[in-house]
Structure formats: structure tokens, C-alpha cells
């Protein structure tokens, strides 16, 4: 059953709708604060944001993922369709595996990034930040493929953190032992199929659970029962934001402007300019943006994504970035103090060829002390990879904590 009905013209009476987990979220939402994530109510923080963050790094946290845009792609041509759509080689994605990718317009500018779930032979799920049904339909011409948006047909939870595997084991999910990162398993959940993928947006050990919205409440209950002795805690979007920046993951609409919605074309980015060059596979003879990206790989990119390790502890949100000769070369797109790495970190957009690992930069940080504003030109260095990358993220079978 769908989580809510959009076929009624009366929908305007509600500008936002409860997720299938809403009753459970409301009971735990001590702050009584809600935010909007497309069609759904989302929780910024149930209680203390810091405790929720540390659940994700120390025990485990549960985040309602239902609002994320989800598409079902099936049919005989599902694979060739996806392979032409995205930049990476989808033929290597076996059933029961999940792959991260980006997809571009003809000019090689990134429309969105997301994950492709190969649910079973010939059936895929594409999860994205933005709605994509129009773009997918344009791309589907000539392919024998069925495409539909299934956002409201699937309830989803992210269970992230070092004790997440233990919680699932206690819940009777024996498949977690063999499940490698980006693996996908199915289990019976009282007559309903529960899909479990070892995926997430925190760069740590973690899983995402997918189920029929009718069973959402039961899943939440079972999860919290099983997790009681493993430090389980609901987690809001603020904690998740810190976790994903620490992991070095980018976010559409924050770290890059999705090409299909960007009025000023110079504000769009290519996969290379977002540090996603590793997802571009030129061995494929045809995919969206191939020609433009090939040219870019020869001529060089205009922008680069830099992961910055910044001195001191003042978060560098909205800051300009300069080179060591004080020339403005870009700006910070996401920033946080990293409680796990104990570093002041940021993702930044800088003009290429700046942004190489080891390069020193300056970040112009404005910060407030007792209402008074101060400015600091902080030193920063470009680092490679995630700011926080624990071995347990890849360890299979996963440990209990």
C-alpha cells in the first residue's frame, strides 16, 4: 500500500505528509521539531544531536529514509537502459549487488548521483536525491523497459553504526554474516519480504532496510526491541549530515547544483569536477555525456572538489577558499567539526588545477562569539579520501561492535 494518496485533489490541505514511521517517530521526538523532506515530515533531531551522531559512530542509529526518491526499473532492456543512462559500467553489477553512480546530460554535467540496486535478475531500483521520472522516461525511448517512481510504495530505514550487524543478527537476519559492503539480501519478515542492503550515507558499518509501508511500524518495533541492548537510538537529519561530511560524501543541491534545475549553466559540474572520475567508464561505447566527458578528460576540468582539513575548530560553512597567494579560488559547500576524526573538515569547490591532495589553502571563516563577529583566515590542506574511515566499514563478517 502506498504511504499516502496523491490522486485526491484535496491533497493541498496538507503541505506535508507523515511517513509510515510517523507514529513511532512522534513518540520519540522529544524536541517536537519537524522539517520537510519533499512529501514527508522528517526529524532534524529527536533529542540531543550529539548523542544521535555518536550513536552512528559508537552504537547504532536509525534514520527514516522513506522520503528518498526511489524508482523501479525492470524489463528485458533494464540493463542496457541503465548502462546508457549512467557513467559507470552497470553490466558488472550482479543481482544482489548495489552500485553508486552519477548520471549526466549530453554536456557531461551531473544531473544527480545515487545508488542502483540490482534487486533480482532484470529488476533494478534507482535511488536519487532529485525526482528523475521525466529524465528516465526521455532515456527509455527505444528500450523495452518499465519505469515507475516507487517512493511511496516502499518504507525504508537506515540502521548505521558499529552495532548494527549485532542488532540485525538478534532480529534473526543470518544473512548479515555473508553480506559484503554494497551487498543486498532478502529475508522473510512475517510473510513480507524485507530487503537488507549493506549501504548507507555514513561511511561506517551500516545497513538500509526496505519494506512494504504496511509493515513499517512492525519493523521499527522489532528493530528497537532487538537493538535495546546494543545502544540503538533514533537519529535525525542533523546527525546524518555530520556523518556524511565526515565520510566525504557529496550531496546534490549542497555540494553541486543538479544540471536539470540549474539556470546558470556555469554552476553545473561534471563527474570529474566532483571527484567522481572513478565512476566514468569510457570503455562503454555510448552513455549520456560520454563525448563531452572525453573532451574534458583531454582538455582538463574547470573545477575540482577538495576535501579540506582546516586548522582550529571553527566550522567553515559558507567560507571562501583562497590559494596561498590570497587569490580566491572557490568556496566551501559543506563543513563540520568532525567529532570522530577530531578535525575541522569541509568539502569545497575550487578552480582546477587547484584541489590536488597535499595542496595548502586558506579558508575565510566568519564566526560569532557572544553576538560579535570575527574573521579568521584559517590554514587548510587538501586531503584524499574520507575524513573518517574505520576498518569495520568493510570487515566481513562484521563484528558485533
Amino acid at each position, binding site marked *: 500500500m502506498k504511504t499516502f494518496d496523491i490522486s485526491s*485533489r484535496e491533497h493541498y490541505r496538507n503541505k506535508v505528509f507523515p511517513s509510515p514511521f510517523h507514529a513511532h517517530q512522534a513518540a520519540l521526538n522529544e524536541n517536537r521539531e519537524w522539517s520537510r523532506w519533499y512529501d514527508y515530515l522528517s526529524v532534524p533531531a529527536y533529542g540531543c544531536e550529539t548523542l544521535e551522531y555518536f550513536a552512528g559512530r559508537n552504537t547504532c542509529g536509525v534514520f527514516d529514509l522513506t522520503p528518498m526518491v526511489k524508482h523501479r526499473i525492470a524489463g528485458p532492456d533494464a540493463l542496457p537502459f541503465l548502462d546508457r543512462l549512467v557513467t559507470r559500467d552497470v553490466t558488472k553489477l550482479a543481482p544482489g549487488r548495489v552500485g553508486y553512480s552519477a548520471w549526466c546530460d549530453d554536456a557531461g554535467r551531473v544531473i544527480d548521483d545515487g545508488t542502483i540496486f540490482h534487486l533480482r535478475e532484470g529488476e533494478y531500483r534507482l535511488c536519487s536525491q532529485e525526482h528523475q521520472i*521525466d529524465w528516465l522516461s526521455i532515456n527509455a525511448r527505444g528500450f523495452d523497459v518499465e519505469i515507475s517512481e516507487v517512493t511511496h510504495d516502499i518504507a525504508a530505514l537506515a540502521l548505521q553504526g558499529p552495532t548494527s550487524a549485532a542488532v540485525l543478527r538478534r532480529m534473526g537476519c543470518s544473512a548479515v554474516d555473508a553480506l559484503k559492503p554494497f551487498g543486498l539480501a532478502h529475508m522473510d519478515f512475517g510473510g513480507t519480504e524485507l530487503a537488507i542492503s549493506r549501504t548507507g550515507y555514513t561511511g561506517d558499518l551500516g545497513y538500509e532496510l526496505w519494506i512494504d509501508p504496511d509493515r513499517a511500524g512492525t519493523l521499527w518495533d522489532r528493530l528497537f526491541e532487538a537493538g535495546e541492548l546494543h545502544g540503538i537510538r533514533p537519529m535525525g537529519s542533523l546527525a546524518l549530515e555530520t556523518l556524511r561530511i565526515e565520510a566525504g560524501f557529496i550531496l546534490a543541491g549542497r555540494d553541486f547544483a543538479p544540471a536539470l534545475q540549474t539556470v546558470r*549553466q556555469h554552476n553545473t559540474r561534471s563527474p570529474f569536477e566532483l571527484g567522481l572520475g572513478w565512476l566514468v567508464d569510457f570503455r562503454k561505447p555510448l552513455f549520456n555525456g560520454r563525448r563531452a566527458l572525453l573532451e574534458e578528460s583531454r582538455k582538463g576540468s574547470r573545477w575540482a572538489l577538495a576535501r579540506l582539513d582546516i586548522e582550529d575548530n571553527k566550522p567553515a560553512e559558507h567560507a571562501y577558499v583562497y590559494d596561498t597567494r590570497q587569490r580566491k579560488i572557490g568556496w566551501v559547500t559543506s563543513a563540520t567539526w568532525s567529532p570522530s576524526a577530531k578535525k575541522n573538515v569541509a568539502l569545497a569547490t575550487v578552480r582546477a588545477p587547484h584541489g590536488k591532495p597535499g595542496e595548502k589553502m586558506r579558508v575565510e571563516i566568519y564566526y560569532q562569539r557572544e553576538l560579535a563577529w570575527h574573521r579568521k583566515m584559517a590554514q587548510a590542506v587538501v586531503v584524499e579520501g574520507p575524513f573518517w574511515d574505520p576498518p569495520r566499514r568493510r570487515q566481513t563478517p562484521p563484528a558485533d561492535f
Partner: protein
Amino acid sequence: MRRHDAIVIGAGHNGIANAAFLAKAGLDVLLVEKNDYIGGAAVSRNLHGDWIYSNCSYVCSLLRPEIHRALDLAKYGLQVVPYGGSVTLAENGDYFGSYPDEDASRREIMRHSPRDADAAHRYERDIMRQCRFIRQFLLRTAPDPASFKPRDLLELLHIGRKLWDLGEDTIADTIRFYTMSIADWLDEYFESPLLKAAYAGSGIIGSALGVMSPGTAYVLLHHAMGDVDGTAGAWGFARGGMGAITAAMQRCFEAHGGKTLAGNGVARIEVRGGAVTGVTLENGDEHRAGIVVSNMTLPRTFLECMDPKDLRPEFLEKCRNFKIRGSSGKLNIALEGLPDFTALRGNQELMRADLHISDSIERLERAYDDWKDGTWSRDPYVDLLIPTLTDPTMAPPGKHFMSVFVQYVPPKVRGKDWTDADRDGFRDTVLDRIEAHAPGFKKMIAHVEVRTPRELEAEVGLTEGNIFQGELTMDQLLFNRPIPGYAQYRGPVKGLWMCGSSNHPGGGVMAAPGANAAREILMHLKKPNTVPEGWRDD
């Protein structure tokens, strides 16, 4: 008889804006108006009981914010309040609405086509690219491409550079956009017939073209390039009716020493020795000035208010050829209560929006077919609003003013002048159409003012009743508006200037032609410029 520095003919928004900018620069300006009230097409009229009508233009978006500030219109009493949304009623009893809330709007499109909800982003992106391009040229004088004067060459280069900045794809789109029909343009994005009908309306308002006619995509842009408080494409109400805009401009003009004579039209613009000397009013009074600025339409200025012997035949021929075809009419209705539109089921949010009843591209095109046949559309396009749901100043509590813009309405009925019987027939056609969607509506009517092109020409002075003072088609835009070689507000006689919407950048309550003309006049007189120029954005 006193001699003035300048006489401005026509106290519409462009005329007053022009006069105010000239007065601000220290000129002694006389504003003359044929009606005994000022405002032209931006008026608030009390014609029945306690109701106030915006009886010509009825919503505000295009008024350039730079002019709003430069003339201190807020200080002089102008408030523009945004209204949200739009709704198109369908014959099957459903509707398609746009809400101020982005997510609600997306869900509403999804209700009709999930794909279109997503395509709307692409559509809005592309429209916004065109808006950003054109806005830069609204408060600038168009270059004369053939003059080879340094100023014109620089301006041409400026336009070229801005076009080049758009990038390859958008340059191609720009050419396509200015030459395509709105129906073809919408087909490139959307599949829902109802949604296409809803979006297409802006492509025909004020134009004697059909949704399938090339050039109507640009007309849509003309309606989307405005903003309210920086929200691009948003529309609002001038509090107190559209007359609040001209009233505020008039206060500014008077505060800078401007004088106004209302109640007497100009019989003739006087020329002696190849230069204007002033005007003679209908009552025979003469007023002298070395500068005469006409806010009247191009044909009215040169074919009706000047001696043909003072003008070159070729120029007069071009005035005759200027496309200024009437296509619309207006019903201003005083209501004793709030009508109940069956399909809306009491949706208060969409009641405050602009409302439409043509639910397909084909119906819109057939409405145009009637115009070609020389009659008003039997199934007309209407842009219907109830400003009193937003503005508390225009009717007593519980009573309402309904503004109904109607298209298509021809300037003549099957080649003959409009009669009162024709006008009543037109009125009944429109009222019956509304009644069909809102049973009981007619019983609430306290008063109706009907304006066909005949009334728009006779009362407002709009030739043939064309609300834009001339078609907004590619052949009459930028340096071709109104006539090639005359796009810089200078008339064909020394001292004669033009500041109406017949000139670049065209119609709508924008005040840009009036402002641009003032800037040119001041530059010509080597006076300090009081007029904002250009548009700044990243």
C-alpha cells in the same frame, strides 16, 4: 500661455513615469490627459456602489523594481501584495492548480502526470534562462543596428556578448523561443493536455495570435519576466487597485513640481519649421514646449494627432502598417457574495489564484478561430481573478470585485463597428461560461462593466483595443519597435519623443518605455540622468 520645458501627452503609467523622471531632473513639465482622471490603463475606478475596479490592467509583476525605487513609489503610497497560484478548470469536473507551496504544486502536477511534475523543473529552468537574458535589456535603449554610431555599436556588442554568455544550447534555444508557438514549446516538455492548456494562457494574453501561432512563446516570456520582491515570475495586486501605481507616480511627479491638465485630449501636436512647438487641446487651448512626449499609441500619435503634411509619407505608411490588433476585452463585475466554483469544492487557496476555464490547447486555438472570423470567441479564454480575496480595500467585507480578462475579442465585429447589442452579446457569452462553472454566480452580480476593444480605444486610447500598444512579435521588438530607425524614443520631428508601450520593451504595466524615453531626453538635453539603467544580477 506659459511655455514649458516639456509636455507629456497621456497620464498612463508610462506618461507619468516619464514626466516624473523629467521633473526630477528639474524640467518644467506639463502632463496632459484626455480623461478627467489620470491612470490610463492602470486605474482604479469607482463605477458602482462601494466597489472599486481595476478596470483595465488588473495584476502587477512587470513594474520594474528599479523604477519603484527611483520614483519612491512606496513613500508615495504604493504597496504591491503578491497573490499565489493559478488554476485551470477542466470540463470533466477536475482542475489543475498551481500553489505557492512548491511541494503541493509538484504533487498537483503528479496527479495529472508524474512525468510532467519532474519536467516542470526543466521547463522552469529554460524559461528562467530566457528571463534572465531579456531582463537585462528592459531598462536600456535598444541599439540602432544601422547607425554605426559608437554608442549603437557598443550596445550591439553588449547584446552579442550577453547572448554569447548563454552558451551554445541556450543560444539555440533563444532563437527557437522567439520564433516558436507556445503550443510547440510546451509539447517539448509536457504530456498532460490540461497542464499545457494551463501554461499556454500566458502565451496569448494581449496578443492577436493563437496558441499555435509562431511568436507566442515570446509572449509567455513577456508575462514571466517580472517579479514581486525578487520572486521571478510572481504576480501581485497593487493594493487599492492598479490605479495605486499611477497615483503614487503622480504624487512623485507633483512633489517635483509637475503640473497636470486632465479632461482635455490633445487635438494636435503643433509643428513649425520642422520642430514641435507644443500642443493644441480639444478645447482650443494651446500649450507651448520645445519637447513634446507622446505616451499615446504609435498610430494615435502620428495618424490622429498630427498634420500628415508635417510627416514623411513613408513614415506614415509604416505607422499604418504597425500591428496593433485588438484581441481582448474585459468584464469588471461587482458581486454581492463569493461565487462557488463547483470543481474547486471550496478550495480557498485556489480561489485567490488566477482562474481559467480552457482545458485544452485545441479549445484555445478554436477561440482564436472565432477572432479570425471577426467575432468574439464563443468559448473564450478567460483570466479571472477576485482581488478582493486578497485586497480588503476594493469592496465592502463579504462583497467582491471580479476581474475577467477575456480573449479573443476582435476590434470590429465581422468588419463592422461594435454595437451595444454586440457588447451585450459578448457580455452574456462570458457570464454564461462562468455560470456553467459556478452555478448561482449570475444572481450575485450587482453591476458589470463591459469593455470591448471599442471601449478600450475610446476610453483608454488604446488603438483597436490592443492592450500592449502593439503586438509583441519578433518583427516589432527591440530595435524594430515601433518602427526600424525609431526605436530610441525619438520621433520623426525635432523635439518630438515617444514614451508609450508602442516602444521598446513593450506593454504591460512595466513603466520601462516611459523611463527609457526620459533617460534619452535628458541625455539629449545634457541634463543629469535621473533614470535607472540596466539590470544587475550575477
